[in-house]
């Protein structure tokens, strides 16, 4: 598929997503809308890992560490300020700084990729234990009690910027969450078209070659990692806004594993894939859960196995390749009948993709 075709497809996807977000409250009841708001906040988390893993080559087993830190940072700040505006900012900055510190240690310490997975996993476990043991009154930040394993209930949800009296209705929350998801997607797309984004992809492709051309892979990976942490933190804030609650289970390893499954099913190396995978699987799991005749984990496992065996690339890349192959065949036929030109290799076309 040529670059222009790809770009048009991406723009079309964004337009469709905008329309879906806009009209959803007309078609969904309140319960469904709340559920989609939850899915969208999770999709922000999935997108953050899809970005650092698919485009930075960084497999982080503990992306929920940043999600959870963002959620707690939001909760603590929202309780203290009584206004969600600075709290959202905190939810982005705190995990970003944490990612900066952790990433510096990992990338500058020349720790191998496998250990990166182990370290991020361990950090998530540590955070779980830390927040789990903050039950006493001494664990209070300002007026916010961390609450240990009980978590923090009744966290103020989003209000209009700088106007704590104007609390958002669930419809508004849906617009904000869906809108944030689209905005982050568009932002990442633009980033990947910029110089930095292209260099980041180059580092993922071949770190040695990137270094031999004068790019410092450590710096590039660090910024990708920090950005991923910031986005996951934003997801955390959106999540707390949905439930007005945060507890230590937000650091649960099962969630970290689930995001990886969403990405594998949706398609690694794309930005749409993680979002599609997240919505699809969560919807499926919620449907199964309401029927109570199957164990949702069992179904999830089965789906993953089917995908690994039959569609190892995931949904989005598989669909994209099918469309590209069809497109190629059509344009070939047109060329042969229309102009009788000799065959040329088109941009990015897999050899022998017919």
């Amino acid at each position: 598929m040529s670059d222009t075709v790809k770009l048009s497809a991406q723009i079309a996807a964004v337009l469709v997503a905008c329309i879906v977000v806009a009209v959803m409250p007309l078609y969904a009841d309140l319960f469904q809308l709340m559920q989609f708001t939850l899915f969208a906040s999770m999709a922000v988390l999935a997108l953050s890992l899809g970005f650092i893993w698919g485009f930075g080559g960084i497999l982080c087993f503990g992306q929920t560490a940043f999600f959870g830190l963002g959620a707690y940072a939001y909760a603590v700040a929202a309780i203290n300020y009584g206004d969600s505006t600075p709290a959202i900012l905190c939810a982005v900055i705190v995990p970003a700084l944490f990612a900066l510190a952790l990433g510096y240690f990992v990338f500058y310490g020349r720790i191998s990729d496998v250990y990166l997975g182990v370290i991020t996993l361990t950090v998530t476990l540590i955070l779980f234990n830390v927040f789990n043991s903050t039950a006493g009154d001494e664990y209070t930040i300002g007026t916010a009690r961390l609450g240990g394993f009980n978590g923090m209930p009744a966290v103020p949800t989003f209000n209009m910027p700088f106007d704590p009296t104007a609390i958002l209705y669930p419809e508004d929350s849906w617009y904000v969450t869906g809108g944030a998801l689209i905005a982050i997607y568009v932002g990442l797309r633009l980033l990947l078209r910029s110089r930095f984004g292209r260099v980041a992809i180059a580092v993922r492709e071949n770190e040695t070659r990137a270094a031999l051309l004068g790019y410092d892979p450590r710096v590039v990976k660090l910024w990708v990692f920090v950005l991923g942490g910031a986005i996951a933190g934003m997801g955390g804030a959106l999540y707390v806004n949905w439930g007005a609650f945060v507890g230590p289970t937000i650091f649960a390893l099962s969630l970290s594993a689930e995001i990886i499954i969403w990405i594998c099913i949706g398609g690694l190396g794309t930005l749409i894939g993680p979002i599609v995978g997240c919505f699809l699987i969560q919807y499926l799991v919620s449907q199964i859960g309401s029927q109570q005749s199957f164990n949702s984990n069992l179904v999830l496992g089965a789906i993953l196995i089917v995908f690994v065996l039959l569609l190892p690339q995931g949904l989005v890349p598989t669909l994209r390749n099918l469309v590209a192959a069809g497109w190629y065949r059509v344009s070939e036929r047109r060329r042969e009948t229309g102009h009788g030109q000799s065959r040329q290799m088109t941009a990015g076309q897999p050899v022998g993709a017919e």
Partner: protein
Amino acid sequence: MTKIPPLLETRNLTMRFGGVLANDGVNFSLGEMELRCLIGPNGAGKSTFFKMLTGQLTPSEGTIRFRDHPIDGHPSHEIARLGIGIKTQIPNVFNGLSVRENIWLAAQRKTTRNAARQIVDEVLERIMLKDLAGAIVGQLSHGQRQWVEIGTVLAAEPELILLDEPAAGMTDEETERTAEIIHEINKTRALIVVEHDMEFIKMIAKTVTVFHQGRIMLEDNVEAVLADSRVRDVYLGKKVAA
């Protein structure tokens, strides 16, 4: 009496892998604008030498100076920024990206958007891959990928270019084209070329350095080196002319 310092100078450069002495006290010197060929049998330590020059390996002992600036043990990207470019023995390209993107990544680091585009077009012309500019590099032949890598090295416009077996896997025509390009580059830049193909060496060489068992065995002009009986001895068993 002031002497111009050499472009590149190594002193007692040594690389140990456990018990293996891959490089053993190499004292090497290269002048500005010089073209040097490096030959030697398999395992002589040529690629290891290049890896130390480009920061892929940290020497066990010894020093490397580039324009009188110590670079031994420095990270690869810093050395690349000082102006040393390398085509490695095993092709090191961005396999998942297009030919044009590969070249652009090399060109854009130190120039403006427009200048980079111009460099990319020139390089694509030079390496004769203009028609395949949009092709994904991983799907090209070995020879074409070699060209892409040479293209990235050219596009980065380094002061010193290291080529590790550039003619391997190339057709006779392509080999001749490579020799031509090397002569062109050498009008403005210095090069070190590692090759086994003696015909190719004869096409390009002035001075030849012979590596053997991690040491410099001989350094002389090309006729003298090819006539030397010791060189024949170490190469015995290996086809001298390709």
